[in-house]
């Protein structure tokens, strides 16, 4: 087994997560992407033929589609070497990956976790140390509760086998077809792992469903696919990832998320991602919302070299609604291009987009969003609000909203402001005895409050701490 070390493009910044896992992969595909690779993946997973067909179709799209390069002001993707991608590594679950124990982790990692205040049990799980941790037990208990209600929460690969009909119907068909964009096509060809969530009619899942409970069993991958089906009247809050620094040996993460919100159902999808700073993070996330349904996206994008992420909601049924809350933090050498897309395709649909971005030390943030109101979507309303905060003159912040309004009986508003941290605000706080750093941190915490208040308390605390650490530069 060779090590993945060679593949990690060394960055000049101090790698925040600079330990390497020794891969113990039972199956490892060749570099680059060919039909053989795709067949190998499918074969190894023992997939039904229809899934192999879908993968091969997606591969064809991937080969024929252009790179997204003509967007104004988009991140530079030239550092992305597609040939270098190893699309598939199946971990050997009998062997533990990573460091053997907490103490083997580099000090700065330990330090980060400590500063984040993450409970030790979770620390171990998150940092890839050991497979025995308490949340596994928690997860088991929850499994039992869910099963009683008919809720399914399992690995996507498992779902292909166990819930074939559902997956066949919903997987990359109507929501995110592989022809959508080049990276959706790539994802469709080589996807692996991720979560499958099915909530039966009128069932409310009280506790957030958290993907990182299963982190050591492929919960987090390079091309993971999340499929959420919320039947009529059901309710669920799905949380992906967590704000601890996530270390990947790959320089490309291209996930796919598909959410089906049926009549009067309510789905919240929260994610705070913090990829290591060598990663290109290019995702496709989309929800289709039926009559009276509600979709909420809460996204925090930190870390990564470049991120392009625009969660999209299609409001298909009368009275459907979407709320997007996004926050982006770009530090040195980072380019975070995020926003939201909403299509109002039915009457009385409502959407809100709230975006906050912070750029520091030459970081680059961009809000890019599209609101489309189709003809006949009478009585629809949308409100978009973008605020950007900049710390210094090396940083940049752009706002590029697009509004396509094909219906007159609507209410559309977009607003954005950009500013630097007010000297007066800092002065005020300093005169109350805070030092400069604390004052700025406090202003930033206030600035991102709309996001943090949407997250469960532990995430909110983590996110705030993480931003504090970013501000101190102790993670950079």
């Amino acid at each position, binding site marked *: 087994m060779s090590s993945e070390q060679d593949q990690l493009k060394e960055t000049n910044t101090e790698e925040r997560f600079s330990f390497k896992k020794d891969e113990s992969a039972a199956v490892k595909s060749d570099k680059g992407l060919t039909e053989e690779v795709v067949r190998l993946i499918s074969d190894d997973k023992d997939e039904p033929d229809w899934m192999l067909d879908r993968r091969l179709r997606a591969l064809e799209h991937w080969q024929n589609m252009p790179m997204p390069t*003509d967007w*104004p*002001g988009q991140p530079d993707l030239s550092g992305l070497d597609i040939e270098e991608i190893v699309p598939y590594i199946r971990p050997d679950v009998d062997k533990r990956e990573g460091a053997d124990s907490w103490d083997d982790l580099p000090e700065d990692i330990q330090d980060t976790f400590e500063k984040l205040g993450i409970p030790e049990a979770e620390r171990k799980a998150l940092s890839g140390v050991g497979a025995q941790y308490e949340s596994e037990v928690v997860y088991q208990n929850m499994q039992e509760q869910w099963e009683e209600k008919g809720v399914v929460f399992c690995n996507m690969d498992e779902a292909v086998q166990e819930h074939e009909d559902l997956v066949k119907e919903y997987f990359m068909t109507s929501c995110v077809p592989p022809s959508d964009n080049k990276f959706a096509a790539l994802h469709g060809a080589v996807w692996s792992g991720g979560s499958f969530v099915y909530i039966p009619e009128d069932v409310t899942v009280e506790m957030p469903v958290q993907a990182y409970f299963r982190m050591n069993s492929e919960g987090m991958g390079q091309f993971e696919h999340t499929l959420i089906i919320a039947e009529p009247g059901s309710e669920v809050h799905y949380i992906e990832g967590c704000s601890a620094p996530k270390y990947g040996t790959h320089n490309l993460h291209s996930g796919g998320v598909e959410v089906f919100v049926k009549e009067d159902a309510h789905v919240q999808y929260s994610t705070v991602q913090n990829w290591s700073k060598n990663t290109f993070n290019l995702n496709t996330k989309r929800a289709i919302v039926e009559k009276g349904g509600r979709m909420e996206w809460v996204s925090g994008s930190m870390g990564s070299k470049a991120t392009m992420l625009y969660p999209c909601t299609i409001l298909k049924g009368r009275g459907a609604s979407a709320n997007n809350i996004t926050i982006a933090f770009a530090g040195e050498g980072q380019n975070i291009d995020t926003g939201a897309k909403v299509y109002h395709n039915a009457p009385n649909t409502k959407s809100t987009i709230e975006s906050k971005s912070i750029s520091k030390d030459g970081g680059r943030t961009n809000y890019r969003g*599209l609101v*489309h109101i189709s*003809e006949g979507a*009478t009585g629809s309303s949308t409100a978009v609000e973008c605020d*950007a905060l*900049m*710390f*210094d*003159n090396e*940083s*940049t*912040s*752009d*706002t*590029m*909203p*697009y*509004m*396509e*309004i*094909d*219906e*007159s*009986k*609507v*209410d*559309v*508003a*977009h*607003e*954005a*402001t*950009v*500013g*630097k941290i007010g000297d007066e605000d800092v002065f005020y706080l300093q005169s109350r005895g805070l030092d400069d750093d604390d004052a700025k941190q406090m202003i930033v915490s206030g600035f991102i409050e709309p996001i943090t208040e949407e997250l469960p308390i532990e995430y909110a605390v983590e996110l705030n701490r993480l931003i504090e650490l970013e501000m101190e530069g102790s993670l950079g």
Partner: protein
Amino acid sequence: MTTTQVHETITEETVREISESLGEPDWLLETRLDALDALGELEMPDVIRTPGRDWTNLDALDYESFVDPLNAAEEKDQVGPEDAEVLPISEAIEEREDLLKEHFGSVIDPEENYLTALSTALFSTGTLVYVPKNVDAEDVTIRTTQHSKSLFNYTLVVTEQSSSVTILERQDTGEDSEARSASDASGETASGDRYYSGIVEVAAGENSHVQYGSLQDLDEETYNYTLKRGNASDYATVNWVEGNLGSRLTKSSVETNLDGEGSETKTVGAFFGHNDQHFDIAARVWHNTAHTTADLVTRGVLDDEARSVYEGVQDVGRDAWDTNSYQRENTLMLSDESEADASPKLIINNHDTEASHSATVGQIDEEDMFYMTSRGLDDESARNMLVEGFFVPVLEEVEVEELREDLQDRIEDRLHE
């Protein structure tokens, strides 16, 4: 990828003929010929693209059918006060070649895109406005009435230190346009499509003040491409007012480079589209240095199947310390068949900035309507009053009374059409 091959139908002779008729010096002829040569490589002006659609499709236009440079015919009034020079382009070439040589193509690169190059190669009419140091020139009027299939118009405004000028420009179409009579005479059902192209360059000297207002009221068989751009030196102000009412399709951009410290710009836009008019309107500003201020205000109303595309760009450069930049755009839709697209963009490379932008799209407020009708007004009068009221905040920004009244009158006319 351009589908228009009009440049293949334009010969060098045509360009030489135009140049000769204006008595141009060699350097200007060379500029024209270079622009003609470049046509093969140049792209159409940028339009906004979102997944699956271009907001304006300029490639689909049949330029060949309406570009007829040798038969250009127009009526032009060019008047100004004594102490400023307001010259038709042929006189300007004769008397002020120095100014033309210095400024022609300095604000807008003739080869910026396909349509600027086409205009550079073929312009046969134009105006030079020159305001010497410390002169305050009011009431410069440029009125262009198009009588031919195509018309390529070029305007250059040069203001020296501490001068000021107010310019009112109007474009419309003559009743007895040649294009129509020609097609009628031949008995063909040739389309009456026409093309108007206007390039405006403003070089605003130190501490000078330029107000440039224009009212575009071409007939609805005319395709209109307009690009206006000003460079503002230290402490200069370049203010634009642009009203768009006419044309079949308009692709217009009003732009200011704030190159000098303390320079300012205010762009006021108003449009009122009906039938199947298509307005693609942009307001752009580049903050290139310290202490600059920009305010972009646009309001538009759409009726019938009219469509508007609005792009606003506030670009704050790395060296633009202490920038203030504001942008507001509001569209009112009067019918279900209309469509309004908007993209207000902020590009910020200097954190010492106070910037904001906003855009809204909506319809007439039902409560307002109810209030008015409950006071005894019929629906139509109430609607008209509300539309006129909608334009008030923009009209208030227009400092030149004559232009304000003109705009108001045209809006009223349209409401009663």
